[in-house]
């Protein structure tokens, strides 16, 4: 750091940027390696019970999926209604 640099505006703090980027990418990658949260099976079971009050469906017709993208999470529910009704409901 010489005389000229001493009077110049301090450079942008690149380490802060590095830390922020790392925190995001590391959280994301850890999310990918962890298995789904432990409440998912219970959620799926309860959803099944609610839908069953109205439509006869079985376990395999409810799909619950959790995705993490960037800073947010997407909970995806996919319920396939029985064929005789000739309709397939999808909620998201």
């Amino acid at each position: 750091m010489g005389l000229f640099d001493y009077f110049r505006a301090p450079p942008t703090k690149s380490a802060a940027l590095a830390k922020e980027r790392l925190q995001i990418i590391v959280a994301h990658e850890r999310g990918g390696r962890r298995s789904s949260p432990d409440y998912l099976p219970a959620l799926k079971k309860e959803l099944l019970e609610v839908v069953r009050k109205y439509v006869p469906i079985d376990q395999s017709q409810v799909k619950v999926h959790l995705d993490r993208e960037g800073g947010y999470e997407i909970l995806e529910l996919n319920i396939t209604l029985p064929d005789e009704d000739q309709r397939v409901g999808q909620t998201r």
Partner: protein
Amino acid sequence: MATVIVVTSGKGGVGKTTTSASFATGLAQRGYRTVVIDFDVGLRNLDLIMGCERRVVYDFINVINNEANLNQALIRDKRVENLYILPASQTRDKEALTKEGVERVLNELKQTFEYVVCDSPAGIERGALMALYFADEALVVTNPEVSSVRDSDRILGILASKSHRAEHGESPVKEHLVLARYAPERANRGDMLTVQDVLEILGIPLLGVIPESPAVLQSSNAGVPVILEGGSDAGAAYGDLVDRFLGKDLPHRFMEGQKKGFLQRLFGGG
């Protein structure tokens, strides 16, 4: 009971072999029977860093394939008592590192040694996976730099899921962070991740900070583990690291850097 320690990082060039050499040397200096194994089949370098490259006759793969016994392959360090080196093969390919073979050799070494230090190759391929698979503890070598920190986190994930301990539901591999090539002045200026930043991201206990130091290159030129250059900053930092590993409660040095005087700041230098 012997302890198996892997020195790993994911990323290459961060100081795994330098750390393995100094860590093993430090343990032996303190009286523990120690062996350091090079797992980098095809790209061995531990022998050069330890200064025993001209004494390699048989290697790790020879022992795995029963072409030589351990006594023939182990190289006894000429400077430090209780220290032995098991070099990697320079010619075979990594497929020769079988889980059964590695386990057999490690079990045999555990009969005679107190510490078995496994110097992992870079990457997450077979050599790296075999180096960490049987580990009880891990030194994760990280530089204060984005790609190194990310790769270290990846390796932590592998230690927690693909090691023998993880697969058999035993207590997890004990993790230690070694932050190497640290330049406190640059960190203070905001140009480099600080020790605290890296600790916050990786979330594992800090075993030691090794300052960026010309002594590391100089000692590798000479084939002397830098810990034997006790007068150097990096050598002293490795000495502290080994003592801390053995349970001494030492404050971390080399994290602050030198305060520059006004004139030094004005006219540069350093």
